[in-house]
């Protein structure tokens, strides 16, 4: 009896084992795996599919939350790892330092059609201080000043914007002039750059220099009185968060809103009469942060035996006009390729793109993670109404903290 039991267990175990281990032995066919976010999955499938047919490669697109792509890349196992990822340019420094993505060499004919700042945004300096490209930029985004043209006109100067905003605000209770999410370093960047603030300076070779932090720079501090003035006059308040700002503008109760193309559909559906421009120049140009999104080849492509193919897809095909036009039409962002960008016929997308003129790509060096928190805190503290910290002190402290955190 006991021996029979043992035999039975052994037999059944082997059977179960055989059945379960079947799928692991197959599946080494010629496939290239791409991680893309929900917005882009369909278009990436289409675009990469066309390439795959020509190249004789089966392309699998795996859908991930955008932020998860970066996080999961750190822990993924080789068997399920992606060969190509969609990502934001400001991940590049970290991914390159971790060796998670591999350097690409882009041909001159392909890079000629891509704005140099977009390619630079996807570059990270190597030991010799040369820019090494790690990704193919495909989409650009930035915030703009959305003007409700029913209640305000496109401002001709910063002072004009300020006075229009305040006038509208005083017109009725519950009215807002200019709404910007409080304590948010990204959305407030046009104000910051307009007062001559910058995050990182550049070294002699044009690479971002983490030892030159411009958050508390002298020019900004000299102009900081403006911020206190805006707080005092009630132009801006850190109690306005993203939801309050959005709801107010969509209800027609705000004259100006700083937001980006991710709200394009909402703006179109709102029925408001709007025009999007760059925030007018203050002491310096009020340029926004630029976000560039694109494709990168991971270190796993080599182990999967698809490195050459992945390089071709990313560094060659994805930069082409055809691929970028297709991606742009489904994702609602301006394409990076200039030929493709010239063909956009969406008014809002065009206006957002124009509002990004002269913008600064978000710093992509890993040290940027020391910046967001403190810069955001400074913005919160200066627009707290009666309890506000004087802007000079707030930004000086933020600069000091950031330098200390970078270490």
């Amino acid at each position, binding site marked *: 009896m006991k021996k029979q039991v043992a035999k039975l267990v052994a037999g059944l175990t082997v059977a179960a084992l055989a059945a379960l281990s079947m799928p692991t032995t197959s599946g080494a066919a010629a496939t290239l795996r791409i991680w893309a976010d929900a917005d882009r999955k369909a278009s990436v499938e289409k675009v990469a599919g066309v390439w795959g047919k020509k190249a004789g490669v089966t392309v699998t697109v795996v859908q991930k939350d955008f932020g998860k792509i970066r996080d999961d890349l750190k822990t993924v196992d080789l*068997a399920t790892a992606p060969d190509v990822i969609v990502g934001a340019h400001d991940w590049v420094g970290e991914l390159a330092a971790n060796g998670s993505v591999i350097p690409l060499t882009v041909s001159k004919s392909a890079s000629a059609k891509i704005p140099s700042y977009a390619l630079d945004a996807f570059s990270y300096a190597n030991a010799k201080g040369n820019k090494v490209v790690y990704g193919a930029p495909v989409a650009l985004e930035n915030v703009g000043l959305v003007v409700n043209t029913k209640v305000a006109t496109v401002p001709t100067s910063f002072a004009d914007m300020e006075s229009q905003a305040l006038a509208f605000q005083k017109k009725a209770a519950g009215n807002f002039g200019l709404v910007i999410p409080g304590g948010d370093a990204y959305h407030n960047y046009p104000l910051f750059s307009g007062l001559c603030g910058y995050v990182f300076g550049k070294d002699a070779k044009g690479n971002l220099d983490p030892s030159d932090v411009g958050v508390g720079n002298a020019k900004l501090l000299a102009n900081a009185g403006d911020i206190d003035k805006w707080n005092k006059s009630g132009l801006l308040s850190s109690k306005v968060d993203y939801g309050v700002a959005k709801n107010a503008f969509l209800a027609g109760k705000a004259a100006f809103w700083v937001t980006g193309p991710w709200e394009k559909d909402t703006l179109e559906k709102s029925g408001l009469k709007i025009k999007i421009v760059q925030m007018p120049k203050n002491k310096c140009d009020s340029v926004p942060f630029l976000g560039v999104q694109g494709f990168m080849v991971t270190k796993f492509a080599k182990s999967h035996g698809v490195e050459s193919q992945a390089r071709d897809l990313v560094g060659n095909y994805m930069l082409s006009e055809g691929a970028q036009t297709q991606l742009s039409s489904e994702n609602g962002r301006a394409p990076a390729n200039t030929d493709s960008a010239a063909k956009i016929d969406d008014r809002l997308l065009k206006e957002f793109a124009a509002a990004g003129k002269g913008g600064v790509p978000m710093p992509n060096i890993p040290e940027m993670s020391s910046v967001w928190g403190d810069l955001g805190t400074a913005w919160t503290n200066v627009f707290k109404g009666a309890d506000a910290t004087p802007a000079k002190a707030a930004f000086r402290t933020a600069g000091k903290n950031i330098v200390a955190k970078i270490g």
Partner: protein
Amino acid sequence: MTATHTAKYRPSFLAWLLSLFSGIGGLIVKVALLCVLNGVTSWAIIVMFTQDRAVWALATLTVLALIDFVYLVPNRMLPAKFIVPGSVLLIAYLIVPIFFTINTAFQKYATGHVLTKAEAVDTNIAQNVVQGERFFKMVPTRDESGELVLVLVDDTTGEAYLGRASGLQEIDPTSVGVDDFGYTVPPSGFTAIEGEELFAIDAELAAFVVPLEGGGEIRAEGVSGAYDSAPGFEYDAARDVLVATDTGDSFADNGRGAFENSQGEQLVVGWREYIGFENFTAVVTNPMVRQPFLRAFVWTVIFAASTVLISFAIGLFIAKVLDKPKLRMKRFYRSMLVVPYAVPGFLSLLVFKGLLNEDYGLINKLIPFDPPWLFDPWWARISVILVSVWLTTPYFMLVCMGALQSIPTELVEAARVDGAGRWQVFNKVTLPLLLAVVTPLLIASFAYNFNNFNNVYLLTGGGPTVDDQGVAGATDILISYTYKLAFESGKGQDYGLASAISIYIFFIVAAMSASGFTRSKALENMK
């Protein structure tokens, strides 16, 4: 008498469950479960082996063999049969993570230090290849003898070449064509490598170099391009240094997971390395850590203690009120009061963040004055405690309802007969008995709230800042402060430092809990 007793005997659910495993039916259940376990685990072991996790595979195999042994050898290891499942889970979910944390705490493991050393060498070399001026359109081909040949067309001049491992040879540009996709079509006599075969030669193609006269080489970039380049670094394995080819500058292993030259410049890509107690001492030597530590620590204790005590007090009060036997709709009240506990904490916290907005939040619209809930350091502290109390109270209400029922009514009645008033009964009889039961839970809840990252981070993000500034905000507890240090400063991630600080926090919580348990023993003795 005995007969009626046995007839009335109803086995507990657990005993009934165990009885399933005896007899022939039990044997079948047992064998079936073991088969599933063996099958799934064997599959997992194979996956581990294929992914070079041999140590893990062997460990899993050992555990599996142990389990089979325990359950298949009859009548020998009865106690083990009960202990094994719990022990295996304990090891897998508690001991292994603790081991990992300790192991990580002794490593340089941060942004730029995640690879192995060998990978770091290769990555540094790859990132520092010096690009030349020329770029070629390329197609990998095989000539008639089957040798790999790159057919190259200069991107700017249009000159065409054959690139072999032996060198470069110019050919007639008109013999090379272009297809609809812009890909190069090789001249006759050469077969383009396409599709499946490109996978087979992937590694070969990536390593293929066409040497150029006068130095430099041409490398393939993908399957349709190539560029001239020169290596920027070479690895000297004998000396374990990376040497810059242009300046001859050498970067040596600095013992801390990076290549460093004599000027102290480090290469971007480093590797994971054991660095002894450096992460532990960093906590003491780094002024950013040291300075606000005491303030964050004091606030953490206040936050955890007041959350627990206030929640307990309110929970006990509600439980006592609901304890009235004649109360109507008791079930309804009870289920309504449990709602904050049933709603996911993340959701409640984010909703509260909106409710507490000073100008636009619902709470300030309902009450006659406008406290700056999340903006003033003191009000923010109050907000964090209030919201935590909201989330924790139902737990203590449930616990107290159970505990109150376990207090024998005779004791209460006896006290009342002796002439004690309501308050005296509660204070002298009910509460001490209750505390004897609940204190361990109070301590556990304290330890939990001590590390309650979500409540702080999602509600206030640790802010607002206090006057002396520093990284820690007014409501930062130790764990949220650790998160800011390890994941929002420096170069983004520092797992080593985070592990070291969490070990410190473990000792703090352990010490406080230990003293708490000693006191609760005293309470038990009061009985």
